[in-house]
């Protein structure tokens, strides 16, 4: 590549670069305009709304309050409670999903009959609409008719006699379980892709050096899998921080399961406090942005390389 470049005169190269760049701009313009219309304009409008206070009594009255809605939200207990509960949920569910996802990927990577079939089948929970799976979990944990409490009671297991969805901690646990059940296959598939990319030679080298299976996993597989795991963790964390449907169906935000998105939804749709609700949406949006930035910055160099790859 550099050799070819050296042969081309300096000047014509820069002219061609400019022309190419113009062409690129022209070709991407339609999609950029579309993106601006469907993403940037509404976001801008939401930001504008969040700086205003709407009154229900006089529709049309919108009073500019600057950062007032944000100050209200950040000064009150509701936002911070939802913030804490959302992060607790995200931390629990994502870490479980990564551990289980890695295990599942290792199993799916083994050679056995029906592997392709199984790889498809494990995706079934992920294909089920979250609200539907939430209702299923609710039915399972129903204190009177659900089978989980009945099994727990029959075998005198811990958690027997507890109204799972009506108790702090337990309610969160059910939501974490439902989320882990649904999205672990997704994490597993991403990690599986990473697993398949590890060259067989590395394993052979490890074997020659006398590493046992556990050592190989710890010192060869895991480090090489890190980019895939981090990537899966990013997707899952961003999703988890926006969690809405599971708590909405299972608890309606009670018993320590109020998420940031639920709070924003309540203000916007149930209470029609457009300004406050928008401010909460923007705060949620910013939180998610900051977390993804942190991930990309500290999650491992390879992630940045992948991101850069996309720009080329």
């Amino acid at each position: 590549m550099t050799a070819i470049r050296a042969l081309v005169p300096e000047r014509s190269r820069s002219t061609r670069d400019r022309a190419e760049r113009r062409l690129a701009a022209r070709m991407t313009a339609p999609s950029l305009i579309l993106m601006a219309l469907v993403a940037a304009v509404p976001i801008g409008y939401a930001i504008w709304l969040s700086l205003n206070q709407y009154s229900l009594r006089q529709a049309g009255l919108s009073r500019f309050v600057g950062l007032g809605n944000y100050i209200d939200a950040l000064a009150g207990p509701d936002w911070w409670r939802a913030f804490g509960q959302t992060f607790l949920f995200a931390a629990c569910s994502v870490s479980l999903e990564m551990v289980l996802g890695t295990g599942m990927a290792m199993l799916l990577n083994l050679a056995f009959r029906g592997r392709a079939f199984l790889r498809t089948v494990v995706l079934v929970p992920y294909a089920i609409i979250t609200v539907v799976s939430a209702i299923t979990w609710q039915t399972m944990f129903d204190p009177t008719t659900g089978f989980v409490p009945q099994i727990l009671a029959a075998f005198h297991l811990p958690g027997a006699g507890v109204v799972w969805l009506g108790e702090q901690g337990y309610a969160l646990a059910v939501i974490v379980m439902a989320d882990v059940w649904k999205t672990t296959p997704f994490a597993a598939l991403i990690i599986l892709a990473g697993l398949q990319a590890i060259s067989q030679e590395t394993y052979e080298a490890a074997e020659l050096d006398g590493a046992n299976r556990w050592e190989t996993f710890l010192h060869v597989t895991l480090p090489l899998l890190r980019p895939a795991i981090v990537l899966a963790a990013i997707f899952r964390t961003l999703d988890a921080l926006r969690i809405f449907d599971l708590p909405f169906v299972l608890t309606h935000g009670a018993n320590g399961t109020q998420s940031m998105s639920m709070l924003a939804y309540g203000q916007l749709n149930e209470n029609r406090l457009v300004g406050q609700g928008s401010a909460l949406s923007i705060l949620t949006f910013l939180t998610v942005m900051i977390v993804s930035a942190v991930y990309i910055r500290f999650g491992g160099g390879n992630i940045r390389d992948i991101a850069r790859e996309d720009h080329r």
Partner: protein
Amino acid sequence: MDRPAFSNPSPAGPRGVRTRSTRRRGVAAALAAAGAISLALSGCGTSASPSAGPTAQAVDPASAKGASGSLSICGGRDSVGLYKGTVDAFMKANPGITAKYIVLGATTDDARTQAVQRLQAKSGECDLFLTDVTWTPEFASQGWLQDMTKVTDAVKGTLIPSTVATTQYKGKSWATPYYTNAGLLYYAKDKVAKPETWKQVYAEAAKAPGNGLVYQAKQYEGLTVNFLELLYSAGGDVIDGQGNVKIDSPETRKVLDFMASGVKNGSADRAVLTYEENSTRLAYESGKYGYERNWPNVYGQLNATPLKGTFGVAPLPSFDGSSKGSGVLGGWNLAISAFSSNPGAAVAFVNFESSPEWQKHVAMDYSQAPAGEAAYSDPEVLAKMPFAQELLVSVKGAKPRPVSPVYAQISEAINKNVHAVLAGDSSTEDAVKKMAEQIKAAQASF
């Protein structure tokens, strides 16, 4: 190898990875966009609305005579076929009018959102809106409805007064009752005594494991209703006619303590903290409970189970015998849109549905609680709905939920704090203070 091993070509690797990683940046943006779009939709009409308030144009009852043309009625899902049935019967009786029913959404909340969007946009698509009894103040204060005082006054002699009260705001009627609803207590006749007072019910329920009470205490609108039923029965209130907050009262404390200790001592299974109407019904149908607080529609469903014949139906009891039993009024009204181009036909429809003859069909054919009083003692109705007299007692004694344009927020303030007390996460004192505070804040946002 200068590229990361991870993005090396492999069957599933790069393609999956690349689309995902592009999507990563899009994920957050898409979320915000979706949120923002919904904002935009709910906010777009607000700039144009006049401050008409409750000084809207009045409907002339005489306009129903010889009305013709088309008429559309908009509301929620027609779960029992009542709306379609009314429309068909109406067209048979009024051949000059073509009426149709438009479903705005599956749930009450969806229907409200859709109705609000049309009204904010001054859409003439709907002539009549099916309105929940709690919407009247909000819709009327926005100038979205026509003043129906004369229309409602003409028929109100045949209607139950408490249902007429739900159509009123600032001294005028903004709708006409269609059908109503009130809570009932179902009880296992073989296990527990007939409900007389809430105190007796709770005491009876604590006697044996199979005697327990089930009701709706999940954190949602249903809990507000369940709590208000006890609060009203104990003589308490949320806000008075002038909008003053009355919830910080000894009655509220008494009721909260009572309900919380009921959950603690097993009068009401702790499971109620997760129950909505349907889960309550299923729990009772398991045969493990003695009392069930639910709506009239449960009657038919219970009769289809092995429990048929084992249960009784009672109106909601008084708190401790010192005051009258009082439920919370549900149900639906019909309101004429301010942007309707055919109010004459709308009045004709309202006159038809509120007539004593049609009110009978509401009960007989659709098992809903009629707004017309005569229907409850009609022999044909009693044959289909043997508990009609108990239901009438409940409906007549029922009080409307707090009348306020910010009802949704008031309800949230109530059910969140009540739930916290029942779950044992908050003290009664704290919850009462917070309820009063949050209701005042909601009123200030109005």
